[in-house]
C-alpha cells in the first residue's frame, strides 16, 4: 500500500510538471504580449519596450525564462503580476477560496444526490420514478451550464426576485458573524444549483447502471440463496461493489469542475479564479496565468491521488 501511494504521488508530481511545461510554452506561442498591454495601443516606443522587456525578463531566451520561473516557483515565489503589479500568490489566494467553496459544495452535493437517485432508480427499475429521473437526467445533461445559469437568474432573480444574481456578498451592506455567512449562502444557491444540476445526471447514470449490473452478478444470487436479507445484501455487498465507478467518475468530474467552473463564475460574477484567469488570458498576464494553471493542476493532481487511494482501499484487486 505504501509503495502504491508513493507511486501515485510521484505520478501526480510528474503530471503537474508536464502540464506546467506545456502551459508555459502554449501561452508564449500565442500572438500578443503583456508588454503591448502595458504600453497601450498607440504607444510604440522601442526604448520603453526594451526597458519593460528587461524589467520582466522577456529579453532572456525562452529556455532560460523557463528555468528561472521553475526555480522561483519551487521556492514558493510565483512572481509579480504584470497587470496588477502585485504578488501573484496573494492575488490567487484571495480568489481561490471562493472557487473551492463553490466547487467542493457543488461536487459533494451532486455526488450524494445523484448517487441516491441512482440507487433508488436501480432498486425500482422501470418504475415511474425511474423513468422520471432518467428523463430529467438526460435533459440537464444536455444543457450547457452557462445557459442553465442564465435561465436560473431570469427565473429566481429577475422574475421572482428571491435570490441575488451576482457576487458572493451583498456589497451594499456590511454584515458580520452569522449574517455574513447566511448572505454568502444566499449568494451561493444559484451558482451551486447550476453546477449540481449539470453534474447530477453523471452520478445518477453511473450509480444506476453500476447497481443494476451488480444486482445481476452471480454472487448476489448466491447470497439470496443463503437466505440473507435483501437489505443486508444491498447495503453491504451491492453498494461496496457498485460504488467503485462512482469514485472514478468523482475524480474525473472534480478535475473538470475545478477548471471548468470559470464560465459559471463569470455568469454569476463570482469572485473566483475563473474570472481572474480570463482577464489574465486577455491581457497576456503570463505570471498570473501560470500561477493559476499551476494551482489548478496541483488541485486536480491532488484530487486524483486521493481518489486513487480511496479506490485502492475499497477494491483489494488494485493493490500492488
Amino acid at each position, binding site marked *: 500500500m505504501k509503495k502504491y501511494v508513493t507511486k501515485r504521488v510521484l505520478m501526480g508530481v510528474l503530471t503537474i510538471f508536464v502540464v506546467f511545461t506545456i502551459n508555459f510554452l502554449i501561452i508564449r506561442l500565442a500572438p500578443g504580449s503583456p508588454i503591448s498591454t502595458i504600453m497601450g495601443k498607440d504607444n510604440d516606443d522601442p526604448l520603453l519596450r526594451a526597458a519593460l522587456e528587461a524589467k520582466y525578463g522577456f529579453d532572456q531566451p525562452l529556455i532560460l525564462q523557463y528555468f528561472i520561473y521553475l526555480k522561483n516557483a519551487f521556492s514558493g515565489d510565483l512572481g509579480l503580476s504584470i497587470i496588477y503589479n502585485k504578488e501573484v500568490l496573494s492575488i490567487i489566494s484571495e480568489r481561490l477560496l471562493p472557487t473551492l467553496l463553490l466547487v467542493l459544495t457543488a461536487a459533494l452535493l451532486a455526488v450524494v444526490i445523484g448517487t441516491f437517485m441512482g440507487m433508488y432508480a436501480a432498486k425500482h427499475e422501470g418504475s415511474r420514478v425511474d423513468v422520471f429521473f432518467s428523463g430529467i437526467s438526460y435533459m440537464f445533461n444536455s444543457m450547457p451550464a452557462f445557459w442553465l445559469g442564465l435561465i436560473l437568474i431570469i427565473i429566481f432573480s429577475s422574475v421572482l426576485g428571491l435570490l441575488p444574481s451576482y457576487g458572493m456578498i451583498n456589497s451594499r451592506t456590511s454584515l458580520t458573524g452569522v449574517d455574513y455567512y447566511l448572505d454568502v449562502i444566499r449568494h451561493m444557491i444559484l451558482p451551486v444549483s447550476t453546477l449540481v444540476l449539470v453534474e447530477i445526471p453523471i452520478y445518477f447514470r453511473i450509480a444506476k447502471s453500476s447497481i443494476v449490473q451488480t444486482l445481476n*452478478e*452471480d*454472487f448476489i*444470487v*448466491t*447470497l*439470496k*440463496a*443463503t*437466505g*440473507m*436479507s435483501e437489505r*443486508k445484501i444491498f447495503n*453491504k*455487498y451491492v453498494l*461496496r*461493489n457498485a460504488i*467503485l465507478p462512482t469514485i472514478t467518475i468523482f475524480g474525473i468530474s472534480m478535475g473538470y469542475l475545478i477548471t471548468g467552473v470559470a464560465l459559471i463564475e463569470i455568469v454569476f460574477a463570482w469572485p473566483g479564479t475563473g474570472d481572474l484567469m480570463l482577464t489574465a488570458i486577455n491581457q497576456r498576464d503570463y505570471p498570473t496565468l501560470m500561477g493559476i494553471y499551476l494551482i489548478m493542476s496541483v488541485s486536480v493532481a491532488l484530487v486524483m491521488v486521493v481518489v486513487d487511494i480511496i479506490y485502492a482501499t*475499497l*477494491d*483489494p*484487486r488494485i493493490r500492488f
Partner: protein
Amino acid sequence: MDKVLELKDFNVTYKNKSKKVYAVKDINLVINKGDSLGIVGESGSGKSTLAMALLRLLPEKNTDINGSSNFANMDLVQASEKELKEIRWKELSVVFQKSMNALSPVHRIGEQIEDIYRVHKPNARKDEILDRIKALLKLVNLSDRVIKMYPHELSGGMLQRVAIAISLIHDPKLLIMDEATTALDVVTQGQILAEIVKMEQTLDVTRIMITHDISVVATTCNKIAVLYAGELMEVGYVKDILKDPKHPYTKGLLASIPSLSGEKETLTGIPGHLPDLSQKYEGCIFAPRCKFAMEQCEKSKPSEVQLSAENRVWCHLYSHLDRDEQLESREDLVEVNR
C-alpha cells in the same frame, strides 16, 4: 424410505408481454434420503431452470411456477418469502455453475462466510464461526489461509472448493450442484468429484447434480434423470440406465460420448436441434429428432411407463407393455414404499 423432495406436475414458464416459453413441463420426481440424483440434458433442456425454480430464485415478475414441490414439510412453490428464508441454506443449499463469481470480489472470503453463517445463527460467537469455517475448509482440502484472502487471489478450483464448503456450512438436507464442476479442467474436476463422494460418507446429505456431462453422473450419482426440452425422458438407477438405456434420447446421449476401452466406434450425435419451447406440442417432444419415431409419436404424448420400482421412461416404444403389467408393477411399488 424418507422422501426428501417430491415434485408433482412441476412446471416453469417464462413469460413476457408477447410470448411464453415453457421451459420445464410436468416433472414428477421423488428424491429419497441419501440419494444422489444426476439431472442430465443438453444446453437449454431446462436443467438450471428447474434448479433455480426449486430454489425460488427466478424473478417472479416473468416466471410462472405451477405444481408442487414438497420439501421439509412445505410446498416450496407456495411458500412465502419468510418461510423460504427459514429453510434456505439451513435445509437447502446450492453450488452454482460459475463459482468464480460466487463471491463478492471486494470482501474477504472469511468475512463473507461469516455473514452467511450468521444468517441462521445471528448471535454466534466469533471463535465458534472460525472453528466451523476451518473444519469446512479442511473438508474440502483447503488451508486456513483462505479465510484472510480475497477471491481473486484463489484459483478456479480453490474457489469451487470454497463454494462447496460454504454450501455445507449449516449441514443442509439437500444440496443442489448446478454444473458445479463444469468450468474446471478435467483433472481438478476429477479431484473435486472424488472429494464430494468421500465427503458424503461422513455427511448426511442428499444431492442433486445438474450437469450435461454424463461421466460426472456416472462417477458421483446413484440415480439419473434425463431431461429433454424441459420434459423427463427417463429416470432410474445410473447402473441400469448407463448399461441399458431405454429411451432413444438417452441412447443418443450415450452414443455421443467416446469410451476409452472397448472397440473403436463412430461417435454418433443426435441430429436436429431443440424444439422451439414457446410452442406447445401435441406429440412426443423428441419425435422430430427420434429415429424410432412412429405415427403415434406425432399424435400423442407418451405417458409414464414404469419399468421397475425406480426406473421409468416416457416413450411410446414401451407403452405396448401390458397395462395390467404396469399396474401390477405399480402395486409392487406401493408395497415397496410401505
